[in-house]
């Protein structure tokens, strides 16, 4: 099984990537680690005429401590996020979740920016970054940067705030005030499967951030759970609201009703684990 024919172009810098995107237009796709795009191309779900390989754009592979936040280059691999000492200390929820993506081989290739830009609602990291109130830095064809908060980035399945010709360059993750008060829960049938439902929780002195994987067309914040907790509801009562406002689908893996059940159970477990801390 191989992709349909396409023309391969390689960028060696952000500038070159943006120039190529401008030149080749909407028939071109950026290729990061390729672990979402190439499988879709084999199945002809995606048939780009051009691939712009970003694999040599090393300037976008970094994890930098910026004091109040951690800046992560878009081409940083899951393996490097997972094993980063800075993230392990300051944002352990993200470091842990990156180690739950796919399997070791996939984590040696897949990138955080690729996962975010691909925007599969069943992916782990978009929901984790939503729970962490991350900001995505986007570079446009003119070279100007614009920041987009995670809450405004994910528009629909495989659809984001990225406009044609734009490139996601950096993910900025604020350091949680209570880094150890987190939980990541993922329900799968087999180890490497996408989450049937997943939950990311980060607690802060101001409240709880609860994000859901695969409970709609985008990653979602469980707003009803968050506001119930803010008004003092016990965990069990708040978790019972986990499916409120969601739009889970039914497929070969699970019915919408089962997904809603899983969301309630996993949110309760996540809140209990996050409260117990580490």
């Amino acid at each position, binding site marked *: *099984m*191989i992709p349909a024919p396409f023309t391969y172009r390689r960028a060696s810098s952000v500038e070159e990537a943006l120039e190529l995107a401008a030149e080749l237009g909407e028939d071109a796709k950026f*290729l990061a680690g390729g672990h979402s795009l190439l499988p879709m191309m084999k199945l002809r779900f995606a048939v780009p005429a051009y691939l712009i390989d970003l694999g040599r754009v090393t300037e976008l592979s970094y994890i930098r401590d910026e004091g109040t936040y951690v800046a992560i280059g878009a081409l940083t691999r899951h393996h490097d996020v997972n094993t980063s000492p800075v993230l392990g200390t300051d944002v352990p929820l993200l470091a842990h979740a990156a180690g739950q993506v796919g399997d*070791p*081989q996939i984590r*040696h290739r897949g990138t955080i920016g690729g996962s975010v830009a691909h925007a599969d609602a069943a992916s782990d990291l978009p929901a984790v970054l939503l729970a962490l109130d991350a900001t995505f830095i986007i570079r446009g064809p003119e070279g100007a940067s614009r920041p987009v908060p995670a809450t405004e980035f994910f528009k629909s399945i495989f659809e984001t705030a990225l406009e044609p010709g734009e490139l996601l360059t950096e993910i900025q993750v604020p350091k949680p005030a209570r880094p150890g008060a987190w939980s990541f829960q993922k329900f799968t049938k087999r180890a*490497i499967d996408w989450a049937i439902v997943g939950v990311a929780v980060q607690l802060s002195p101001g409240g709880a951030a609860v994000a859901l994987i695969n409970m709609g067309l985008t990653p979602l914040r469980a707003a009803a759970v968050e506001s119930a907790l803010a008004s003092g509801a016990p965990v069990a009562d708040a978790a019972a609201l986990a499916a409120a406002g969601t739009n889970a689908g039914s497929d070969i893996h699970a019915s919408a009703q089962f997904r809603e059940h899983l969301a309630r159970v996993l949110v309760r477990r996540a809140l209990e684990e996050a409260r117990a801390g580490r």
Partner: protein
Amino acid sequence: MSDEVSKVSLTVNAREVTADVEDRTLLVHFLRDVANLTATNIGCETTSCGACTVLLDGESVKSCTVLALQADGREVTTLEGLAGAEGEMSPVQKAFHENHGLQCGYCTPGFVMAITSLLRENPSPTEAEVRAGLEGNICRCTGYHNIVKAALAASSASSASATSAEAAQ
């Protein structure tokens, strides 16, 4: 859009392999059909089974989900590249042999490469870490028990305890 062709040059098992291939050529096909190294198997072709696992710059990857062009200029190690100059087996290969870590053998090259990469990153894994580290490989004979045993036997924890046992005697 045409069937674009580009030059790809890889160092495979310390040997330079250069060829003009279609842009869409996957690394696994380059290894098998161009480099004529057929130990690397094609299983699911969907990044699930791990039979096509090779090392790219020393790290395990699934070669069915990497374009040959993405690996251009890099170092690839396949199962054929593990044995020493005199044909002596690598520690992982030896451990598979001694622990009967295979049944039909189809998944074996992928498992050996995945374990080789795992032990480079974590030379003394626990059994749980071995099992988690092999999530990307499927053995359809379900021969996991001896595969995990082989991985543990090849780890430095095992050789360290063997050394201390010898020292105690």
